């Protein structure tokens, strides 16, 4: 059985690896997402610079989700990569209660500036990224392709 993606050769699903992480939607917990991102990036054989880039990109992805605001809930992260060097991450915000403003983030003006910077960072560090809302569920995702080191 194979997965096919437009423009790419078929990938054997046995070569697709998945890691799932669920953390509280709390700024204090984002270090766990960064640690996992670094570990996954190493397993996916990304180079050192890409590992650092992915740590930051995952942090920004989680910030995107936190800015939607939850009173309590979880951020669920799904890391999926294949032997061809494509790594996809999907983050989903799973609120426990009604949406509210997160009180631990910088003020509104600082947040809009940070949001702009966050977009610039993601534009620069990953091959593709985005966010959407499906049936009221906030998602953010990104894709990174492994860069081969030139010798």
């Amino acid at each position: 059985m194979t997965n096919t993606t437009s423009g790419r050769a078929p990938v054997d699903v046995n070569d697709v690896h998945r890691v799932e992480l669920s953390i509280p939607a709390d700024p204090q917990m984002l270090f766990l997402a960064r640690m996992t991102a670094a570990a996954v990036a190493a397993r996916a054989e990304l180079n050192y610079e890409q590992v650092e880039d992915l740590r930051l990109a995952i942090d920004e992805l989680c910030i995107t989700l936190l800015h939607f605001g939850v009173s309590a809930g979880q951020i669920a992260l799904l890391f999926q990569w294949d032997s061809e060097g494509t790594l996809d991450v999907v983050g989903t915000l799973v609120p426990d209660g009604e949406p509210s403003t997160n009180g631990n983030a910088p003020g509104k003006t600082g947040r809009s500036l940070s949001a702009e910077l966050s977009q610039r960072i993601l534009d620069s560090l990953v091959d593709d990224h985005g966010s959407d809302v499906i049936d009221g569920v906030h998602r953010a995702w990104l894709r990174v392709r492994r860069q081969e080191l030139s010798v």
Partner: protein
Amino acid sequence: MPNDAFFEVTDSEQPGVAALDVRGEIDVATSPELQEILVELIGREPELLIVNLTDVTFIDSTGLGVLVGAVRDVRAAGGDLRLVVTEPHIIKLLELTGLDEVFSVVSNTSDAVRP
């Protein structure tokens, strides 16, 4: 390491100069504390505020946003803010966000106090 960040305000021998040493990870959890300290330092109306990021191992958009707010406030009060940065990935981050054009960035504290 879980969201460890340390901030130390250093009294400079030079009048009008305030310095802040930052260590650890500056993210959405620790940026509010950085913002508080910078607001307090800017309230002293320094001619020059030096923020030493030499021992910062990670900074994200919220940390950068706090620093951009600080440089705006310092300059609005007639002063200036300089960053001391040596970590290659932080230099890269400043470049890719275009903030290397916003901040005066130097590689050591001696250069930071030079006119």
